[in-house]
């Protein structure tokens, strides 16, 4: 509990209507998409960087935890106040400040919704590629803090590849501006990059400079069904081998196909074990060329049905259905451990074939889908009760060990947060972890920013 006097003095600093400590409001800011609730002591809605600086300075002096929150759409509990304190909501900082067409860049406040930025830049013939499944409601600030990926990462990379510069408030109230509206910058260490994926633990990101691209003129989308998982994965490496880098290659396993069918009309043979949703974009000529090669690769690798989608409505329907998979897993089981492991693309087959037996060994179901094109698969271990959860944690641990053994990482785009904290040592050595802790100490010596995340208790 924060003393009333503290709430009062924060109100004096940033405006009385910009802070609430009412129980009902606290409940509404106690969760994110990980679906676990931790009650904050207060929620603030600052409108500008200066107010955030004042707030952090006070919190730092008094040792009050502060947890930045975009849309609360993260999967690993990054936006929940695990140790109470203040939730810093960016809902009132949602302006697109400038889109610079001549320089292919944009400056935005962190509360801008990713999908709205997409629309705004696309209306000017520009393109911001990162497209996490939650793009219709997640925010740029959250994307930067988690280094969000998305389906277009195969060809275009992740959020990190588009962040040119930031404005960040440090816990002591200092405001820094790493990076510029330039595509190159090697003055000193990559401070900008350090904040990308920092999960709200190093500073509060208050402004983002983004790189844009010209909008690809057209796209082509394929939905292909396979009788064997291994054939679908061979297709992925085959396409790369033929010198084609599609903008998206998504894998959907048998369990997830059922969920997709609820959101899009798809007709595939009954014995289908895997779907690939492949898309490429570019000029008409380039897309025609890559389309031909992708189609022949699908045929050669044994696809049992191939749909070529060209109508925008249909393409949109297919992607909507793909994005609905993760939340609709709740139709199969009450809870899930939603992982985002990544392996080198040629090790995907080895990883996937390991997941099902591991789940089975623990008498659990496993549902796999995700970004086959960049080796990033959402392995979901489904469970219903406490007892099953313990077994699910064991299964996840085994899957993560296998991932690291195959040369991969335990998280490609969701971050560590709370969810993966128990597993971080599987991947990071003591030396690496100690460097991370020291970095954290440089920025946030009093550990007020998003405490309880990333680092396992010593």
């Amino acid at each position, binding site marked *: 509990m924060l003393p009333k006097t503290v709430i009062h003095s924060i109100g004096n600093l940033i405006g009385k209507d910009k802070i609430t400590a*009412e*129980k*009902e*409001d606290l*409940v*509404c*800011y*106690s*969760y*994110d*998409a*990980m*679906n676990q609730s931790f009650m904050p002591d207060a929620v603030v*809605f600052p409108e500008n960087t200066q107010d955030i600086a004042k707030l952090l300075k006070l919190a730092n002096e008094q040792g009050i935890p502060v947890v930045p929150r975009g*849309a*609360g*759409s993260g999967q690993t509990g990054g936006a929940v106040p695990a140790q109470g304190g203040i939730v810093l*909501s960016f*809902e*009132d900082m*949602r302006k697109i400040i400038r889109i610079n067409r001549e320089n292919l860049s944009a400056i935005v406040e962190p509360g801008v*919704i990713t*999908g709205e930025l997409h629309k705004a830049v696309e209306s000017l013939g520009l393109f911001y590629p990162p497209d996490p499944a*939650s793009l*219709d*409601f*997640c925010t740029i600030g959250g994307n930067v803090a988690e280094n969000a990926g998305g389906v277009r990462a195969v060809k275009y990379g992740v959020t990190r590849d588009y962040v040119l510069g930031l404005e960040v408030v440090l816990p002591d109230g200092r405001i820094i501006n790493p990076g510029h509206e330039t595509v190159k910058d090697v003055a000193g260490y990559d401070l900008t990059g350090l904040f990308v994926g920092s999960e709200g633990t190093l500073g509060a990101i208050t402004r983002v400079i983004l790189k844009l691209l010209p909008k690809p003129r057209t796209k082509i989308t394929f939905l292909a069904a396979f009788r064997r998982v291994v054939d679908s994965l061979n297709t992925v490496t085959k396409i790369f081998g033929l010198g084609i880098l599609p903008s998206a290659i998504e894998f959907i396993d048998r369990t997830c196909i059922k969920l997709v069918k609820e*959101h899009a009309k798809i007709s595939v043979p009954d014995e289908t074990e895997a779907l690939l949703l492949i898309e490429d974009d570019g000029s008409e000529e380039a897309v025609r060329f890559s389309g031909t090669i992708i189609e022949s690769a699908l045929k050669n690798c044994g696809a049992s049905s191939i749909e070529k989608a060209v109508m925008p409505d249909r393409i949109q329907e297919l992607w909507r259905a793909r994005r*609905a*998979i*993760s*939340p*609709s897993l*709740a*139709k199969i089981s*009450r809870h899930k451990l939603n992982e985002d492991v990544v392996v080198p693309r040629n090790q995907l087959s080895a990883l996937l074939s390991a997941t099902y037996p591991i789940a089975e060994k623990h008498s659990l179901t496993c549902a796999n889908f995700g970004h086959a094109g960049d080796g990033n698969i959402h392995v979901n271990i489904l469970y219903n009760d406490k007892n099953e959860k313990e077994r699910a944690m064991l299964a996840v641990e085994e899957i993560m060990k296998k991932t690291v053994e195959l040369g991969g990482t335990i998280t490609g785009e969701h971050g560590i947060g709370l969810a993966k904290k128990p597993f971080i040592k599987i991947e990071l050595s003591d030396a690496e972890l100690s460097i991370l802790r020291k970095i954290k100490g440089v920025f946030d010596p009093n550990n007020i920013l998003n405490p309880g995340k990333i680092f396992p208790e010593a």
Partner: protein
Amino acid sequence: MNIYKLASEEILKCVKCGACRNACPVVREVNREHGMARGKIALSDMVLSGGTAISDRIRVPIEQCLLCRSCIDACANSVNTDSIMIVMRELIAREKSRPLHIALTNGILASRFSGVFFKMLSFMQPFVSHFLPVRFYPPIAKNPFIENINEITEGHLDKRILYYAGCLNNFIFPQISAAAFKILKNTGSTLIVPKKQACCGLPHLSLGDIETAKNLALKNISVMESFRPDSIVVSCASCGSMLKKYYPLIFRGTPHEESAVAFSRMVTDITEIITASPDMPLRKNNGYKTITFHDPCHLKRGMGIFKQPRNLLTGAGYELREMEDSDSCCGFGGTFSLKYPEISMGILSRKVSNAESTGADVIATSCPGCIMQIMDGVRRSGSKIRIKHILELIA
């Protein structure tokens, strides 16, 4: 499973992903977590499973829902937020007495003397409106539709169509009902317009008065079934979705469930009937050139109809220009528009400006509630665009 158990089950189905934010017209205005379904569900959970007393900080967000069902469309798990809101509103109604004007309106609508009241109101309205400058509403008609029409008009076909006018298309827009009557007569079926049809009960249900809604539903079901119709046709999307979607819902897990479901199967929107009779003579383009269609929430998400009206309009020779977010709510929501006029009008101005940007001459729609709301918005924006019920264009 009755509606109360259903609400608790629906709460459990929410995985807190946040996808409802993008869909909800209210959260766009209030810009806080409690504006969207995820927050409203968290608050409902506090009350329904946590036993928290309903404070104003719970009541207001629960009231600030248009029941437009946009969030349900956006939700991968189709969490029925509307059922949760209705049950929560019943709890609110039990704990707090309703504001007088709303209690009165609902009392009148539910009463069998509603006709008399509306007649009286039609004389009083010019004086009353003077004191209600916040919102503009069209006048109450001097001659309601139902009293001036025969209860049964024989046709040459062995098919019986029952026309359910609903309050607004009877008392405020009788010309819409007249247009519906004209079209339905052309089908050659025997046409029934029951004199004893009661309010559908949606205004009561949306305020959580589930009991009155049930009573009205039972009355309507028994009145209409006594005429043994083959189909029940509406020209008001709100009434339509009440009859078709919510009657079965409110009687879930009760002895009336089966008959409510059987009844709901007969209910259909008039655009569907017209589409199913391709030979029906429709009035061709009458001077307006371009139309943009606003999908009422209760038509698209309530009854699953959105292609039919468009096909009818283009079939009648109009050029259709789609507006952005044609299926987003207009912000009416019945008493919502009175109780939260600022939010309602914020949503409305977005709708009107989307419609205007198409450059169309007319906004067509098929719900008198939307018509009232958009009429007000058009008036405020000073726009020249007109708002019409689709039947006024094709009948």
